[in-house]
């Protein structure tokens, strides 16, 4: 399939194919998408691994992420600095985990990171409240929000510390029938 592409070396494409759920064609397509977000910043030649990071403001305006209430959290969870600046590696990583092929455990790990707003490795009540407000655009009354959060924690918390650790979260998610079909983005 002799494609005369000069963006990546063959070795790099092999590495991407091993480390993500994408094929070579899809990696090249992703690079095209990454490039068109900021054509003057992103070089067309990635053979020497340039250190280019796009700011989070550009990434959250992508059509795939624009309507997502958690877009800033998603981008932050995949960035190395936690601020949402994604290099191409992080970009590919993000869409790989969110693709259809990623297994449930991997998605659960990242879902936990996304919903953990204060990054303390627990989903506490405040995290849940923020999640809920983003989901319903603050159209629920505060008592309803409170009730829902309490009920959700009560359902999922196994070890009784009134916040969800990763084990609780994963246990609950492993039984959710539609987690895999909702937690995916097509690009």
């Amino acid at each position: 399939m002799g494609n005369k592409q000069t963006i990546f070396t063959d070795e790099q494409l092999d590495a991407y194919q091993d480390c993500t759920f994408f094929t070579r064609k899809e990696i090249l397509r992703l690079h095209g998408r990454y490039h068109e977000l900021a054509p003057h910043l992103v070089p067309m030649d990635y053979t020497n691994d340039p250190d280019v990071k796009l700011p989070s403001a550009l990434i959250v305006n992508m059509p795939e992420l624009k309507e997502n209430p958690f877009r800033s959290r998603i981008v932050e969870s995949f960035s190395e600095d936690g601020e949402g600046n994604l290099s191409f590696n992080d970009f590919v990583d993000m869409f790989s985990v969110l693709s259809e092929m990623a297994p449930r455990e991997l998605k659960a790990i990242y879902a936990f990171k996304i919903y953990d707003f204060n990054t303390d490795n627990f989903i506490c009540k405040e995290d849940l409240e923020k999640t809920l407000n983003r989901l319903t655009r603050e159209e629920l009354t505060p008592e309803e929000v409170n009730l829902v959060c309490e009920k959700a924690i009560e359902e999922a918390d196994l070890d009784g510390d009134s916040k969800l650790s990763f084990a609780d979260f994963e246990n609950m998610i492993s039984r959710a029938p539609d987690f895999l079909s909702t937690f995916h983005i097509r690009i």
Partner: protein
Amino acid sequence: MRGHTGAFKMRGHTGAFKMRGRTGAFKMRGHTGAFKMRGHTGAFKMRGRTGAFKMRGHTGAFKMRGLNRGLQDEGLNRGLQDEGPYRGLQDEGPNRGLQDEGPNRGLQDEGPNRGLQEEGTYKGQQSEGLHRHEQEVFPVRDWDPNLPLKNLPLSMQEKRSTRDRRQQQRLSIGCWESWRRSQRIARRRLWEQVVRAMCGLQLWRKTLHTIEGKFGMGVKAYFTFLRYLLYLNLMHSVLMSGLALTPALLNRDEHTPRGFQGNDSVLDLLLGTGFLQRSPVFYSFYPPVLLSGPCLSSPLLFLLAIASLLILSVIMVVRRTVIGYKHTWMLGSSYNHHMSYEVFCGWDFCTQEPKTALLQHSFLRNDLKLALEEERFHQHVAQRTHVAQQRARLYFLRGLLNFLVIVLLGGSFYLIYYATVISQGEKPVSWILSLLVEYLPPITITMVNFLLPYLFCSISGFEDYSLTVQVNITLVRSIILKLASLAIFLFFLHRNIKSAQCWENQFGKEMYKLVVFDFLACGLNAVLVEWPRKLLVESYPSCSLLRALGKPTFLVPFNVLDLVYSQTVTWVGLFYCPLLAHISLLKLLIVFYIKKFVLFRCCEPAQRMFRGCQSSVLFHFTLLLGLLTALVALVINANILQPSRDCGPFAHGDSLFNATAACVETLPPPAQRAFSYFTSEAFALPLILVEIVFLTSFVSQGRANRRAIDRLKDILVMCSADKRFLVGKQAACLRALQPSVSAGSSGDARHTERKDPSGCQPFFARSVSAP
């Protein structure tokens, strides 16, 4: 921790850790969990960390080894060194455990590779010297080496370095091993490509994706169910064509006239007479032919076709039902996770259009409000049962309404009986009236099935149940209505069928008429009811009556019941009208496009999101009920009625099983004896007993497991309470120890700074062991 000065050593800590304004040496080993630090000065060494890590305003040397994802470095002195060669067996094993999880048909490995998080014990030598070489044995806590790279929750850079390490390992293993491994990887990649290609071949993928985005998962579930029925009918038609149609076509009787004859007209298409009666559509076309030997005769092949078709359908439908049911049933009420599922799995990340996003927001809000309503309703019920008089009144009301439902059902059954009797009587002269009379049973059944569910809906509103229970009760009543009306029709057809020739043909014609009319009703409903309603609502927005009526919404449960009903009719009629599977296939194809038109042009999205996944269990279960009804009807027919003497494949025998008897007689005697044993009661009864024993053992095992789960949950709660208590105690002890530590702090700090930079000191602290 705040404002600590002096040395600090910790080992094997788990859990959150916060520190502020530290000065002095800091060593930590084997920490898992969150870590925050601010304004630290002085040396800092850490090893084998996992979990999030934040540091701010640090000055001084900093070394870390084996960090796992989540490093946030805010203004750190750039002395960061990430070291840690990896030692150990590297094996990129293939993905094990394909699991089909319904709508997501990707490759999922939920098999034995559950070693994603290794919370570690610290591996490595305890006695370390001063100048330790970086490459030496300090196996960084890493993930299960059998896990493919893609499944690791690391950043791309880390995955690449892991990959390089694994490749290096591979080089040091013999060429046989590396060849085997490369083969395995190539096979896995090929398999993934095949799966991807097959997923891409599925019919109507794009349309279903659009429907899911615009109308939600419940509506998509209906169309997925339709596609499943299409595949089922395709399988049926292939079996019938291969086993029954081909022998009949090859051995056609030369004397019967073919094609259009004198008295035929287009009406024959609707009535099943004339040229259609002589075509392969009906039972009489299939002659009893001996192909080669008594064991390869067309009646036997016909029986084989029907039997294999039904058995395959049973297996497929049961399998689908059980897969979905396992999720909901075995967990019981203690695992009702509705609220958490709504919050964490409620948002569809695929949404791209603003309108759809708005819709999803309102869906979620409504669903959450509904769930809260149910909670409040449950509390209200708990209060209500205390007043005996209210309870008595409620039960009386419910009894009355159930009686009303039974009366309605009885009335509709009587109507069907009346229609059957009229249609089997003498036909009027004019062709329009005779067409109407012939079609009276299907018309009655369809009208009854159309009107009564709405009545049931309004009746259940008065019975004071929570909303989901109301919906469920209406569904159950509608299912009973549809299946029972068909059963009653078949029963009265039995009684009243009188035909000089071929009663099977007559029966087949009735089934054919049912299918045709169902199809016509679907089309007429779309054109005469839904489309005008939408036009009216749009052209007269001010009229209050029309506004109250509103645009049509796509009612998923009732549409699904229609599909199940037509599939049941197909199964019953397949024996007497062998091409019914092909007709059904064509009909489903056209119905898909009709419903798609209704959905996209006429309907607006419902405000309540129908829980898609739970309902697919319901759909398949209803389909199973329909299949069982069809099986019972066919078995009764086979046993009670004799096949006609002059038409069809079984014309030469007294019963259907003469053909099989003829074949069995040609087998050797031991086989004959075995066969007669297997078909006798002496075999059936012990079989049933054995099945009952198995069932009982499984049920008791399930109950024991449930009790074990409850006990384990209690143990978990106790252990975590213990852990919190111990952590609190340790913090108190540390605070008490602080004055004594800070006294020797300056000496310690200098001491540690002189020691080896890789920080391999045995630590003093008591580790807080996680239970």
